[in-house]
């Protein structure tokens, strides 16, 4: 039973445009959500997070939106750059261990 789902295995975006990565969850007890970025042969690196008491968190080109009623969050990257090409994992805190989605491969074309 996947508690965190990323339904798009891959996404291709033109450089300079917006990338939108989506994530759905089922467990209403999750109270903290994170996005991690992963390059090949490296471990995931933290990108941005959001507490369940907020609906938006912004950090430079990265913004995460949380819709608690829909149990949905999304990561927006604007503008997308070729260096953003990586696998993006959505994760939920429960409460200390992380529950990850399967990941979305983002390709930013120049």
């Amino acid at each position, binding site marked *: 039973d996947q508690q965190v789902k*990323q339904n798009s295995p891959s996404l291709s975006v033109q450089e300079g445009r917006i990338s939108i990565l989506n994530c759905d969850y089922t467990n209403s007890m999750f109270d*903290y959500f994170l996005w991690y970025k992963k390059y090949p042969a490296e471990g995931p690196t933290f990108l941005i997070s959001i507490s369940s008491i907020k609906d938006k968190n912004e950090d430079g080109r990265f913004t995460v939106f949380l819709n608690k009623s829909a149990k949905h969050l999304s990561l927006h990257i604007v503008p997308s750059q070729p260096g953003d090409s990586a696998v993006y994992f959505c994760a939920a805190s429960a409460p200390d261990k*992380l529950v990850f989605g399967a990941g979305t491969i983002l390709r930013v074309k120049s």
Partner: protein
Amino acid sequence: GAGVSQSPRYKVAKRGQDVALRCDPISGHVSLFWYQQALGQGPEFLTYFQNEAQLDKSGLPSDRFFAERPEGSVSTLKIQRTQQEDSAVYLCASSLALRLAGGRYEQFFGPGTRLTVL
């Protein structure tokens, strides 16, 4: 080094062989986590430690998996009698402390050990 390190980076084992995977967390980090990542999937929680105490091992898939952190720093994940389904990347992460209510401590991941069981 400043980050989490893991060794070996790659391990090939014959079915039935025992393996030991090592994790060196960031110095001073109290919490240490192990995750298993199968091909095409996200990391799945195995176990975690606060200092030397193993507080949650609910994710360990069988009693063939054993983790320890005897001095509260370096940790070893041991897999006995490896099976082909154990093939995966094993990720270690550390964080400064356990998360407190209303706060968060980021988990820093190592590069992982890719285990292939033939």
